[in-house]
């Protein structure tokens, strides 16, 4: 399933409008904002319990509770409530849930404050419900989805230390491109701990992480950055592969549409996250060059990407990093 879908769920008293474009969208936030109400409206419509509910969507929006089956063949948007998701908290149950949804021809909206560390969802696809307007004498309440962690252009930083999510290509690139300390967190779930360890030793820490799957770590990192006396710049583009694809190295291949409108190309049935899509795209794009050295590998970054010119091109995509 591909595409970006604008959905509106409404009854006489309230409406909720939102857009989904990736396999997983998370809805959480403060209590009393209307999350359960949204779910119950969709559930009542799905089960034909309440005919006053109107759903405006180009693909079916369905609500699932408990062990109701998830269709793997019908293109749809599936919304799952927190009570149901509570059942999947254990490792075994989460594995079972991921197996059910992995190849489903669907986008999923998960209503929960649980972090779901095993699901690769984007930091940009975590939303809360916002009351946008109240209309008329009957006080129709209009809600929209609002990003909890929107992309905000930060002030460029000259760091004392760069922390990368893992020890793969991003880490290897930074070690070869900057003169300040570069440290690998050895996995996104270790990012908070690694940053905490380095806080005392450095004044300015630049953290480079893959935003397309960083969702599960978002709250921890937010708490850490807000509380820290060290200046921490969390830079989370879609992925390191996305940065390479955005650079001058691949300009001649005309990939801009694939990068700007990824929702039209990253099939949710094949890719659990856009990080996986960008990796696949980069490997395919790199094979189009005439030299084998250009073929991209996540685990071992080839010297092609470490030439002076190509390093410069990649660094130019990281607007918030001043070179040290």
């Amino acid at each position, binding site marked *: 399933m591909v595409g970006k879908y604008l959905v509106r769920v409404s009854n006489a008293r309230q409406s909720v409008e939102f857009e989904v474009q990736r396999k997983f969208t998370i809805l959480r936030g403060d209590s009393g904002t209307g999350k359960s109400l949204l779910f119950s409206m969709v559930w009542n419509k799905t089960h034909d319990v309440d005919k006053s509910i109107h759903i405006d969507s180009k693909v079916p929006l369905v609500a699932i509770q408990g062990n109701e089956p998830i269709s793997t063949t019908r293109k749809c948007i599936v919304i799952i409530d927190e009570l149901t998701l509570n059942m999947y*908290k254990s490792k075994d149950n989460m594995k079972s849930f991921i197996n059910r949804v992995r190849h489903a021809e669907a986008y999923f909206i998960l209503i929960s404050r649980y972090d779901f560390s095993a699901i690769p969802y984007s930091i940009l696809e975590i939303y809360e419900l916002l009351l946008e307007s109240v209309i008329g004498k009957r006080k129709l309440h209009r809600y929209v989805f609002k990003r909890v962690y929107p992309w905000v252009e930060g002030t460029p930083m000259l760091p004392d230390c760069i922390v990368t999510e893992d020890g793969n290509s991003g880490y290897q690139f930074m070690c070869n491109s900057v003169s300040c300390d570069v440290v690998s967190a050895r996995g996104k779930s270790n990012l908070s701990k690694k940053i905490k360890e380095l806080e005392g030793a450095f004044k300015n820490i630049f953290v480079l992480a893959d935003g397309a799957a960083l969702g599960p770590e978002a709250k921890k990192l937010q708490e850490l950055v807000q509380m820290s006396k060290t200046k921490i710049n969390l830079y989370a583009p879609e992925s390191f592969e996305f940065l390479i694809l955005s650079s001058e190295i691949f300009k001649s291949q005309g990939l801009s549409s694939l990068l700007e409108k990824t929702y039209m190309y990253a099939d949710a049935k094949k890719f659990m996250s856009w990080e996986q899509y960008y990796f696949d795209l980069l490997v395919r794009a790199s094979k189009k060059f005439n030299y084998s050295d250009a073929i991209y590998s996540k685990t071992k970054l080839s010297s092609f990407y470490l030439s002076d010119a190509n390093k410069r091109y990649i660094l130019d995509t990281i607007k918030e990093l001043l070179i040290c």
Partner: protein
Amino acid sequence: MLKLWVRGSHCKSGLLYMQPDACFDQLFYLEEDMETDFTKRVLWECNGKTEILNYATIKKPTGELISPEKICSGAKNVLCMKYIGNEIPDDFKDSEVFEGVSGFIYDILWSGDNCNQYIAEIALEKDLEVKSSRVYQPYSRVDLEGLKVQIMETGDVVTDGEEFLDIVISNNLWDDI
């Protein structure tokens, strides 16, 4: 004091966990508790600006009237923490339903960060044992002084968010939560 099991799954206290809808709908129903200042503030802040008209009727901003059973899970969670707490109410102590159960524990998963202030208020007034299946920083959005939090996994007692984060992160308590 707030006694917090940071990793919700590791709670060893032997208290019975009840999901807030079940706990509230079955155990909470003293009329006077619905009309207190605390309840009014919780319903305003944590239940989408709803007003209590009386113990059985709540008015939503849309004008719709609802009964207390329709309150959101997060607000119910807080009200249960306040008015039931960790001990089994006297009325239910002899009930076979709670045979062998010494008390209740609540999961912060059901309450958003807008409930933190009220949880802190409760913990300043009495000992409250909770667990959290989500990332929960008890000092976030709290403007009260003097809140002590005991991190049950390590036994440490902290008095501010910085101390709390230090212990939680260095002990990997938020890993795979």
